[in-house]
């Protein structure tokens, strides 16, 4: 059976519907992950019990496989009376794990801020909240944009795992198409290339955003193409 991608043409709209669902769950998950990452990153810098708790959270979610987390949320929680459907379980799981990986990035972004900057803000009489909102976060997030982007790209890749909890996102629909056409190689090769193309495009976008946000900073030019880091892959 020779390699023939044309067998996919009748199923393109099914796959596209799956891709749309992937996009939705990922977009919502990334919004949640970004919010959680910022909050946890701010907390994790602290020395008190809140900081310790935030670091413990990150530790747990980084060291337990994503599949196990998803199974726990989808199959485990109903046992104690919490029912969430597959889509929102997916959003929740992506948000929780992305928040854990992202908070490390935000935290190191905050720790990299020159102490003098924060001291100057304090001396100027800015309130704690104003310092966080106007000084700390803008600087930290600007340097963190590239590694954060890498976390989000990994989140998109991990969303394929949600097909295991009956969510028919693009990997789930691809499984259906593969068993319908009896051409699994073509289907999965196409899917693999599609994911790679998408992540590559996103990496380019993040590179451009990073350059734009950091255009005033001369020496902050990390090696180009380093967007997609090896760390922080959720699985």
């Amino acid at each position: 059976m020779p390699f023939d991608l044309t067998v996919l043409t009748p199923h393109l709209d099914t796959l596209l519907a799956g891709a749309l669902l992937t996009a939705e769950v990922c977009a919502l998950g990334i919004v949640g992950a970004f919010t959680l990452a910022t909050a946890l990153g701010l907390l994790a810098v602290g020395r008190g019990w809140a900081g310790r708790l935030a670091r413990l959270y990150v530790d747990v979610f980084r060291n337990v496989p994503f599949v196990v987390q998803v199974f726990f949320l989808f199959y485990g929680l109903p046992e104690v009376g919490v029912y969430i459907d597959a889509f929102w379980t997916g959003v929740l799981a992506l948000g929780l794990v992305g928040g854990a990986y992202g908070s490390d990035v935000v935290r190191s972004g905050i720790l990299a801020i020159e102490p003098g900057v924060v001291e100057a803000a304090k001396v100027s009489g800015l309130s704690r909240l104003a310092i966080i909102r106007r000084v700390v976060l803008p600087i930290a997030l600007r340097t963190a944009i590239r590694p954060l982007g890498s976390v989000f790209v990994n989140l998109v890749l991990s969303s394929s795992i949600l097909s295991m909890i009956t969510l028919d996102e693009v990997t789930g629909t691809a499984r259906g198409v593969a068993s319908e056409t009896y051409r699994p190689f073509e289907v999965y090769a196409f899917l693999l290339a599609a994911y790679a193309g998408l992540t590559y495009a996103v990496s380019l976008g993040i590179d451009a955003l990073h350059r734009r946000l950091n255009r005033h900073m001369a020496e902050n030019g990390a090696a180009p193409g380093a967007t997609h880091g090896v760390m922080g892959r959720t699985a």
Partner: protein
Amino acid sequence: MRHAGFTWHDGALLAQGLAVSLGLFAGTFLIGLVLGSGAAVVRHFRVPALGTLLHTGLELLRNSPVLVQLFLVFFGVPALIHQPLTPVFAAGLTLSANTAAFVYFIAVAGLDAVGRDQVEAARAFGLSRVQLVRHILGPQALAFAVAPLVGLAVNQLQVTSLVSVIGVVDLTKAGDILNLRTLRPFAVWAMVGVLYFAAAKTLTLLGNRWERRLRAHAAPLGL
């Protein structure tokens, strides 16, 4: 009669699953380490067509979900070559290649971090390419790469949880089996999570110790 409670045998099942997960991780990580660093050396010496080919292939592996890679190897390849693959073989192949892709990019960065002048000096002394890699590039690149490699190892251990989808009875699959019998998913997945967590923490601890040893040796050289 339905045996729904947890028994001592369940502990054995989980232990067996954990052993399979750890074994698969250790095997594929070692193979990936060898393949990935080999590819990085090929790239470092700018071997014409092979270097580009490897780079493109490994970039593709790094930028796609492991789950899809597993499906491609386990379901796709047999359909193409008309030859069934066993789940363990497909899982081993996929995870090795996937690890190699990530190791490759770490190793490339490590090799690039070694100064050009050292390479030139070594060549001036008449060292062959093999000697150059073994005595000059290898040890220093490893010192640079050890921290990201430890991070990758912890990550790769978690990635092995995906092989349960193609029927390998690893820790996740053991949890699945246990869950089907006891119908206590909350406890089962919490237990599986704790086991993975413990394994990952142990690995991090070992990795950090190894890193300290490597760095202690490298510190006087100003690395």
